[in-house]
């Protein structure tokens, strides 16, 4: 008897895969790290520590979310680290030496970030420069520009308590003794919005499509250049936002710094499952990945490791976090 239908055995997906695979593992790693640090150090399990960790995670999270977009297009943005510091410098300089209102300076930060993003996008999408090189160059340029504009001096943004320091309350409300880290709420909100953008809007869809197969996307009649540039502009936008949150925690923004932050953000994104060869990635994954990095950075000193050992352990844990998923996937394939 002929039977034309093909039997489709329902593939039993593992619990982890149903929860989002690597993302989920990384989240577990983050939670595990947190618990280990809490167990090992009394100082770590305090609310105040938690708030401090959050304070210093916002800008890395924001940069990570932003850089997820160029990464998904199979590009990269190395300029966000020094760029972020550059925008914060320029914003602080406007407030301090030109008496701009804080709000206006914040907008300048974000716009400046978008302009550099536009430049990166132009170089990559129109001039077809390799993203690694193009953004390495803009990274140098922004580092220089920031210092030149402010004249080499460190710039403090309005400190807590000053008139125009309301922006600090964006990240942390302190009612006398209790401190509410509302920055965390913002992060959650932004992650939700950007997840939506990535998964349910044209911008996100075409970002993924460009990373999957740029030429095929172009042949489908998509304005590839526009969306390719947009990915970098989004990244720049978030670097600008990160500048604001950075200025809110670091009393003085120092020119010449910032190199290395981009690696934390990019590293977080990759651990969170973003593929550097493009087409794959999620904002929630990036969030989880960045958390792992931030937790390691803040937690290792608490368990009494010196700087050198912190480096070694960070490297090993990050490799481990990614390996878990890879080994799991391999085992499943063999089955």
């Amino acid at each position, binding site marked *: *008897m*002929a*039977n*034309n239908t*093909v*039997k489709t055995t329902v593939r039993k997906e593992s619990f982890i895969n149903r929860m989002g695979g690597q993302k989920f593992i990384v989240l577990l790693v983050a939670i595990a790290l947190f618990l280990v640090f809490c167990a090992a150090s009394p100082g770590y399990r305090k609310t105040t520590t938690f708030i401090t960790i959050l304070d210093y995670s916002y800008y890395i999270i924001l940069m990570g979310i932003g850089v997820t977009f160029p990464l998904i297009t199979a590009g990269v943005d190395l300029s966000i680290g020094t760029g972020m510091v550059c925008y914060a410098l320029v914003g602080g300089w406007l407030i301090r030496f030109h008496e701009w209102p804080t709000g206006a300076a914040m907008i300048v930060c974000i716009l400046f970030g978008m302009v550099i993003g536009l430049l990166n996008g132009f170089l990559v999408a129109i001039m077809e420069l390799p993203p690694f090189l193009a953004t390495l160059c803009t990274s140098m340029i922004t580092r220089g520009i920031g210092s030149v504009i402010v004249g080499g001096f460190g710039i403090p943004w309005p400190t807590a308590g000053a008139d125009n320091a309301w922006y600090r309350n964006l990240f942390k409300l302190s009612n006398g003794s209790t401190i509410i880290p509302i920055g965390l709420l913002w992060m959650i909100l932004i992650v939700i919005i950007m997840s*939506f953008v990535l998964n*349910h*809007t*044209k911008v996100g*869809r075409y970002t*993924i*499509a460009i*990373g*999957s*197969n740029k*030429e*095929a*996307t*172009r*042949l*489908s*009649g*998509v*304005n590839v250049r526009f969306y390719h540039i947009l990915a970098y502009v989004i990244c720049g936008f978030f670097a600008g936002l990160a500048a604001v949150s950075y200025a809110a925690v670091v009393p003085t923004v120092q020119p010449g710094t910032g190199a290395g932050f981009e690696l934390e953000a990019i590293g977080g994104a990759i651990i969170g499952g973003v593929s550097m060869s493009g*087409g*794959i990635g999620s904002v929630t994954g990036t969030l989880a990945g960045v958390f792992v990095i931030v937790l390691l950075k803040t937690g290792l000193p608490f368990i009494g490791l010196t700087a050198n050992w912190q480096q070694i352990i960070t490297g090993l844990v990050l490799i481990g976090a990614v390996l878990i998923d890879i080994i799991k996937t391999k085992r499943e394939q*063999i089955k």
Partner: protein
Amino acid sequence: MGEVILTMKEIDKSFPGVHALDHVNLEVKKGEVHALMGENGAGKSTLMKVLTGIYTKDSGTITFEGKEVEFHNSREAQDAGIVIVHQELNMLGHLTVAQNIFIGREFKKGMRIDDKKMNEEAKKLFDRLNIDIDPKETMSKLTVGKQQMCEIAKAISHDAKVIIFDEPSAALTETEIEELFKIIRDLRSKDLGIVYISHRMDEIKVITDRVTVMRDGTYVGTLITEDSTKDDIINMMVGRVIYEDPKTESMVPKDAPVVLKVEHLKAGHMVNDVSFELHKGEILGFSGLMGAGRTETARAIFGADPIESGDIYINGKKVVIKNPQDAVANGIGYLSEDRKRFGIVVDKTVAENTTMANLDNYMSGIFIDKKKERDVAQKYVDDLATKTPSVDQLVVNLSGGNQQKVVIAKWLTRDCDILIFDEPTRGIDVGAKSEIYKLMNQLAADGKAIIMISSEMTEILRMSDRVVVMCEGKKTGEIGIAEATQENIMNMATREIG
């Protein structure tokens, strides 16, 4: 057939080193299926790419619906009503089927892309076309055949006036081709103009109304299909007559030794308890429907995918094949069905690709003997009549069929005793096809053993000495060529076992 909808006149196009189109003409009418034929590298794809704005023509005119047009990109062509199903797959592997089909024209609900509606629409489209694909599946997980069907569905979903199919059937099985023809007839009845490019003569006779033939970038002529014979068309294409008759009896002597024996092979998701024997000098055809597991069987034998259980004997000796190196060392060669992904290194030269599997023979000391390498590459370019300006041409610039010849050359340099040809003539023109057939017969006569996986029934019947039929990962039958017919093979290919 209605009035003329599209005219291409005196189209000229050159690439560095190649004069791809030399004043070519083409005329398409409403409600006709117009075949575009020609050998590999004749310029068919290039002509269509010029039409749809992917390449800019050097000279000539395009008239569409009475107006002269010039498209600067595929979007403009699409908007005007000309869509194309490309010869090379253009999928977005990380997106779902539905997302692929509606890329660039998503349904929206406010800001939000309405994926639900897209899935529904895709489902409707598939139902109408009688295709069984889950719109929510990720594109890269589909087989080549299914991906091709998605591409076709995508083209049809446009509200087009002219649809171009550039070798749609190359990746499809017989049943799928039947479905495709139903779709095309339906489109024809709706007064669309259709350009159909294919190397399969049978199809041309069945589905098309007129045929335009190209040769070496020039226009040869246009025929009415009904009024012409297969030989007329082939003659126009290659300048001689080629005969393709089914094989009636096995050429293999009864006492030929078994060179490859596979026992109870189990691998991957699909291959389940496959056993067969391959004799010296034999061409063993592997037939079956799409997804029958033939490719996976071949890959498992070649060590490309891990084997779960089962034994492989070569010349009576049990061998362990863990990876392609082991296979090659044991004298097995494998020509993949997906040449772009697994067959060639596209951005390297013809010469470099030719020696890829056998570099050891082209070394002098620790250095690669580039002269020897180019010489052997040139030899196979001549033997297989590969169309390329030189052996230093990058493979990416060759036409699809000629790329296939480069892959064949790669395995021929390595003098393997067992050759697995997975869809060896996919996308190859009649002339070259008969060359490859001749070559395979020659190889078999020289004592090589060949497994030929093919979805083209005529090919199976013409070339095989024996046919193995698979269905859903299991061997469902084995039949000598003398007894094999289209009917009994189809029967086995759809047989429920156990």
